[in-house]
């Protein structure tokens, strides 16, 4: 019997295929393409305490095998999320991961506290490169990762995921800080800081100048970081960054990810999560793999 379940902080996901924050809205839209109940979990659009209008358009630019986005955390705010968005998702039996961003540790803590009874997991976004205040600083210093994780840990008893920024010299160090502060899981990578210039108008393409790079272009970097984190921590890892098909997913799991998450691929292939899941299942059957942890290259030796 193949077992695809994944244990994260004591909570079981029925399989390791997740969808990434900010690429899947609050779920509604993709329900036209397949049954959500087949997903391991849904990570919803990043939310903040107060509603945010987000950045001025343009907000997206296609790059070679990637995209730059500058959404700037547009969201209806914590309370509207709980009231207006969650009820739809609750109709499904799929675990919900709330992705939160704060300007201060207090904001993170308050949000985590309020969400504690409403969602299944909390994911701390300490890495969004689009927002000038907050975000960026938390994710690039191990001390701040430690601190914000520790404080949020105090106010929530549901599993806590810390989502790391790839814009750092030593990702392993950040992961270790999160683990030491009580995180149940590390997710990575968020977008890489990139930029584009509108050469015809001689100005940065985005109002915010920098924007977040994602998609197949970043996969080799994401995979390397998952590998590095897997050498460092003993908690589960959710790998993401450019995953487009089941082969990519297997690469991430071999590198050390316990689960994987699909982001940008939803845009060009709305059925990507379903196809990846089916591909992994077939791979397991063909190769006689009962437990996906078996395929980790370092076999859990850390």
């Amino acid at each position, binding site marked *: 019997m193949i077992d695809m379940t994944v244990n994260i902080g004591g909570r079981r996901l029925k399989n390791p295929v997740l969808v990434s924050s900010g690429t899947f809205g609050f779920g509604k*839209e993709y329900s036209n393409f397949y049954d959500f109940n087949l997903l391991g979990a849904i990570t919803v659009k990043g939310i903040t305490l107060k509603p945010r209008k*987000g950045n001025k358009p343009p*907000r*997206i630019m*296609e790059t*070679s095998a990637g*995209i730059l986005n500058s959404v700037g955390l547009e969201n209806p705010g914590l309370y509207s999320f709980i009231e207006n968005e969650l009820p739809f998702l609750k109709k499904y039996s799929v675990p919900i991961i709330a992705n939160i961003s704060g300007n201060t540790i207090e904001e993170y803590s308050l949000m985590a506290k309020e969400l504690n009874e409403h969602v299944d997991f909390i994911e701390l976004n300490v890495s969004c490169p689009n927002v000038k205040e907050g975000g960026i600083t938390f994710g690039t210093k191990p001390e701040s990762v430690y601190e914000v994780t520790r404080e949020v840990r105090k106010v929530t008893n549901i599993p806590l995921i810390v989502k790391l920024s790839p814009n750092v010299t030593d990702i392993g160090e950040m992961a270790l800080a999160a683990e030491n502060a009580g995180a149940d899981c590390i997710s990575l990578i968020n977008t890489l800081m990139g930029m584009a210039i509108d050469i015809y108008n001689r100005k940065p393409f985005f109002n915010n100048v920098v924007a977040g790079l994602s998609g197949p272009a970043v996969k080799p970097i994401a995979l390397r970081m998952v590998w590095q984190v897997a050498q460092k921590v003993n908690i589960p890892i959710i790998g993401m960054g450019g995953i487009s098909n089941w082969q990519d997913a297997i690469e991430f799991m071999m590198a050390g990810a316990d689960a994987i998450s699909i982001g940008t691929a939803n845009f060009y292939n709305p059925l990507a999560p379903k196809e990846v899941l089916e591909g992994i299942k077939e791979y397991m059957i063909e190769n006689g793999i009962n437990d996906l942890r078996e395929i980790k290259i370092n076999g859990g030796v850390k």
Partner: protein
Amino acid sequence: MRREFCKIISNFRVANNVYKMVIESKSISKEALPGQFLHIKPSQNYDPLLRRPISICDLDQDKGGITLLYRVCGKGTRLFAEIKPGDNLDIIGPLGKGFPIFQNKKSAIIGGGIGIAPLLILSKWLKEADIYLGYKDETYMTDEFMNYSDDVCIYTESGSRGTKGYPIEALEKNINRYDIVYACGPKQMLRAIKRLCEKNLVECYLSMEERMGCGIGACLVCACESSNNDEYKKVCIDGPVFNSKEVNLDD
């Protein structure tokens, strides 16, 4: 809305850099409304990566034919132009909110350049609209518009065909004849039409463009300025067709 691999029936050049493609999808064509668009994958590989939004230009709902009109301007549309009849395209659609149809109002349809694409099927459904089409120099699809309306006026910047000038100049003169104006074209044209209609208290619907990610409302990248300063509209699901009063076209 669905995702389908659709067969290409034909694909040929109708003007310099402008192509007309007919694809086959019974189910999409049955659901589709004027003003809606398809989100089309230009490549099997990852460069270009994203789908391209292309308006529905005409529909043959019996045969399942969907006509698209597109201008080659970048990587994706260049690949569209290379597609051969019999090939398949990966398509999501129909997407977005289309033009509201009021049969008993006197309507004007005004389009500029490739912006005429969604207006053909609209003029077919409206039956009695007056049509103003503007081009730089070379014209295309004018015969098709003439099939659907007796009142098609053609303008070119160069004066090489039709009347020399811009269609909005003519619309301006006749604006009081109309209850409603439908428009699609370059942003500065839409801006002028919005101003003209609002000044004359004529209802006005504009089809807007913005770069897209998902095309279905999930990623929030297709934001356009709205008249409500607190929020952006999403072109992909709140539009692409907006009442002129909903959107803010100032730069």
